[in-house]
């Protein structure tokens, strides 16, 4: 009797993590479309996609374990590497965008790095 309950709870857990992951990825896509410039878009692309992918991979891991009894180490490693590489990607993309002079959006109010670069040039 209790087995049915456990199965139901596990099913709900799996669907919940898959749904949450999908939700975050859809939000990422919307954010990339909506935000005004490269830098704010990078905010969306690097942040919410990590949690989205984590959610989907966790769901897949649970499913594999519950249905087939396989402990899939690859999925766990996938989560780890996504968590490690997403911030680095964001940093590198933002940096190269700045160096190739992609302008900030009109809404931007402050740019202390530009001030710093100008100061260095004057010397």
């Amino acid at each position: 009797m209790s087995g049915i309950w456990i199965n139901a709870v596990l099913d709900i857990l799996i669907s919940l993590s898959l749904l949450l992951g999908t939700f975050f990825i859809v939000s990422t896509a919307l954010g990339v479309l909506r935000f005004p410039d490269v830098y704010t878009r990078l905010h969306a692309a690097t942040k919410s996609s990590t949690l989205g992918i984590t959610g989907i991979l966790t769901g897949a891991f649970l499913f594999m374990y519950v249905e087939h009894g396989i402990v899939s180490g690859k999925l766990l490693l996938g989560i780890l590497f996504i968590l490690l590489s997403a911030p680095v990607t964001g940093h590198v993309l933002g940096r190269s965008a700045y160096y190739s002079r992609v302008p900030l959006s009109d809404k931007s109010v402050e740019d202390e790095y530009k001030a710093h670069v100008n100061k260095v040039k004057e010397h």
Partner: protein
Amino acid sequence: MPFQIVINLILAVMWMFLSETYNFKTFLVGYLLGIALLFLLQRFIPDAFYLRKVGKVFNLILLFIRELVLSNIDIVKHVYRPKLDIQPGIFALPTELKSNWEITLLANLITLTPGTLSLVISDDYSVIYVHAMDITDVEESITEIKETFEKAIMEVTR
């Protein structure tokens, strides 16, 4: 710290030989016994007990995950707000951290905090230029980064 880990591994292998069963379970039991021995004998072994540092690393990982979830929620809120009322901008964050390793960790943590993205690190490693989604509360985020992240990183690396 590496010395203590090596001792611990040797103790675990010795335990496997003593109990003459060579599988992972015995290794684990041996490792736990080794930890207990190191804890009891920490007065005679150079450096502090290494599990204390492992605990701090664990703390840092928990901090990392918490910030990740918070920033995700923050971004999702921005995405679904009908009107974008944000004031993006770049601010300078002076940092006391020195080594490559520490700076990398800090930059990654900044990228995962709500509303900030580390953009450029100055050539002398003293300033990190951070792009913020909403620059109105810069002071607050600077103190938050300094208080929580720098402290947590320093506890691990020093």
